[in-house]
């Protein structure tokens, strides 16, 4: 089939919101376009098909004619709802996380209840996500009501589109990431304990750990990331990166809450301050990197779904 026609029909199919047989609608549209191109322009060529398609209108408009009823929110917005809700959600979790990092005091001990910490994270995540979803749905409801279109014109910027295009995974990059997270996981599993024992033997009890759940959080981050990169060899989808990004962020958030159980003792105040600032900076840098990667994944996933809208 002609590539342009195929692309057009795929977009129409993506926009179709009907209980009718979508395959049959697409099959009929294909037959109609080819027949019209031949009868009107003498032969089926890229040019004649393009002319017929431009007469038909945009895929979203064509799909709308086949849709069962007027939607409260235009179906062409559905990817933007996902994109914006998740992007803002990632940003809010990130801000929460960084705020927590600033709050950590390595000198005073404030025990946090594990159950309450988990409950707090789950509660905040749910309420934030549904609040954002509601606001964004309302926004698109208004856009639909007042027929404001073409909000996605920024997809047309070539540089952005190239940057956000989904690329096949690079084997070297994936292997190096798996190795990095394996080392990270092994270090978390064996290293921290070993260092603590070593420091205790030398008379310095630098870090006092009274709750090891934080290590399990890091352990989960490492193991989950290894799993995701391994799965990506078989199926490369941005959805996996999005799940990984949110999982990492939530566990990092949990870790910042549990960091309250750390105490830096038995050393000079300047060194203690240095370690404390170093840990905080490391946390913030990791958080920012995870958020950037997550938002890029969300945009890539959404652009992959919507990238053809503006082309035709």
């Amino acid at each position, binding site marked *: 089939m002609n590539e342009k026609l195929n692309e057009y029909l795929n977009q129409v199919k993506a926009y179709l919101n009907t209980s009718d047989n979508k395959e049959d609608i697409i099959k*009929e*549209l294909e*037959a109609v376009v080819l027949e019209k191109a031949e009868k009107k322009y003498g032969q089926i060529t890229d040019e004649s098909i393009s002319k017929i398609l431009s007469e038909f*209108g945009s895929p979203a408009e*064509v799909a709308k004619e*086949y849709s069962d009823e007027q939607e409260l929110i235009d179906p062409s917005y559905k990817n933007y709802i996902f994109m914006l809700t998740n992007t803002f959600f990632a940003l809010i979790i990130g801000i929460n996380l960084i705020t927590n990092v600033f709050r950590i005091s390595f000198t005073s001990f404030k025990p946090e209840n594990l159950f309450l910490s988990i409950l707090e994270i789950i509660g905040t995540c749910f309420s934030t996500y549904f609040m954002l979803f509601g606001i964004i749905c309302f926004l698109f409801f208004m856009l639909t009501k007042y027929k404001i279109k073409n909000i996605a014109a920024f997809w047309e910027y070539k540089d952005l589109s190239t940057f956000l295009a989904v690329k096949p995974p690079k084997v070297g990059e994936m292997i190096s990431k798996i190795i990095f997270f394996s080392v990270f996981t092994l270090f978390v599993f064996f290293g921290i304990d070993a260092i603590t024992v070593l420091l205790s033997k030398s008379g310095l009890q630098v870090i006092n750990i009274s709750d090891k759940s934080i290590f399990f959080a890091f352990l989960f981050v490492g193991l989950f990331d290894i799993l995701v990169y391994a799965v990506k060899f078989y199926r490369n989808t941005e959805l996996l990166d999005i799940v990984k990004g949110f999982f990492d962020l939530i566990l990092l958030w949990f870790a910042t809450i549990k960091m309250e159980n750390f105490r830096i003792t038995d050393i000079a105040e300047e060194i203690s301050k240095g370690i404390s600032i170093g840990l905080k900076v490391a946390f913030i840098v990791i958080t920012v990197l995870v958020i950037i990667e997550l938002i890029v994944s969300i945009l890539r996933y959404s652009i992959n779904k919507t990238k053809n809208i503006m082309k035709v």
Partner: protein
Amino acid sequence: MDIQSELMNITSEMNRGFLQLIILTFLDVPSYGYDIIDSLEKIGYKVEENTLYPLLRRLEKKEVLISEWKVVDNKPRKYYSISKYGKELREEIMKIWSIQNLILQKLSDGRKENE
């Protein structure tokens, strides 16, 4: 108020029902979309593809029309024709249309007498 835009609105509303009646009348003989558009255009009735095809499907869903895929000259075409139920429905619509026509005629005649 702009008479042209108002006229377009009214025409569009009137055409909605009229097109259905035309389709029900035309499809006594099975035909496919392009042929319907072409034939109607030849007798002075222009209909857009984006209007006709969804309408054909809606009528098919309501069992007013039936359809069948056929390959003619190596081209797949979906042929539509009126169903038994469609024919009964068409008779009723024609009655309503005749009554409406009659009412309009009487009103028009009455107005002329008053003038």
